[in-house]
């Protein structure tokens, strides 16, 4: 298949499928009642899904399979404490980046 055509096919099909995933239950529950059990389970979606998303980004250095990066893990823990108390995205990013740079510098990775 022609490369240009293949890319546009990916854009169209993945675009439709991802949109269908995003709309799925919003559309389904627009007309039906949400079961009580599910409504209770939904409370744990942010904590569980976002932790599953973030842990691999923190624990593994990008492009280096299987290697664990101690400064990133420590900096992430510091950022989590800042986020917990401040609830501020900006402060969390600033604290986390500062902690990472400081730890990397301390371990002699920079300069």
């Amino acid at each position, binding site marked *: 298949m022609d490369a240009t055509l293949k890319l546009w096919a990916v854009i169209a099909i993945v675009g439709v499928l991802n949109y269908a995933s995003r709309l799925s239950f*919003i559309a389904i529950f627009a007309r039906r009642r949400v079961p009580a059990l599910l409504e209770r*389970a*939904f*409370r*744990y979606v942010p*904590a569980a899904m976002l932790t*599953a998303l973030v842990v691999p980004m923190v624990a593994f250095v990008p492009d280096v399979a299987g290697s664990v990066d101690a400064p990133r893990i420590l900096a*992430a823990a510091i950022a989590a404490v800042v986020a917990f108390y401040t609830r*501020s995205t900006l402060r969390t990013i600033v604290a*986390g980046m500062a902690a990472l740079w400081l730890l990397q510098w301390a371990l002699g990775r920079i300069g």
Partner: protein
Amino acid sequence: MRRLAADADFRAGFAEMVPACIGLVPFGLVCGVGAAAAGASPLAALGLSAIVFSGAAQILAVQLLAAGAPLAVIVMTCFVAGLRFVIYSAAMAPYLRPLSPRFQRGVAFLLTDQAFAASVRRLSAGGNPRAAGLHFLGGGFALWSMWQVTNMAGYFAGNVIPAAWSLDFAVPLCFIALVAPHLRTAPTIGAALVAGYAVIALSALPMKLNLIVAGTIGIVSGTLADFARERWTRR
């Protein structure tokens, strides 16, 4: 659109998303670089970021395209990576019921990890669903606009940020900023710990299935802990 831009809730949602947008700049650049490396035309690169609008799916798509994978494999992999949107969709659905179908479709199009995490607390706090929905649309629109700009910047200018700065770390920090404030009850902390452990333990699964499986295990654990706590306190 002009009426939306004048709405106070829409504008507040837009403004509150700006820090997360800044944090996601390195991710957008990487996605743009990936599209250029895969030989996409400028229009196709823009189509990818504007229509698919998911960093994880875009990275997978261009990597698999560059590796010459069959169309079915690319589509299937991106679809599986996007399955978490089904869970977000379900979690947001109860609060969006009073809104019109057109409104719901707008929310669905702009549904991403950041938009979900940033708005779910406000949505679940009750109040006016229309105001919370407009707040979501404002934040989602901020993310979408920033995403197109950074993808195009990455496509044309390449990765202008030196790797030694480790600015890619801003991406997990964005998520930490959104998830850590949720961890205030025992079942929620349990859900996060189980999901975090499971995603590493299951990292050998193909097509990044570990993400959706670990997330689901975490949700079930949190729910079970919730029931257990309820029985305990009733006694």
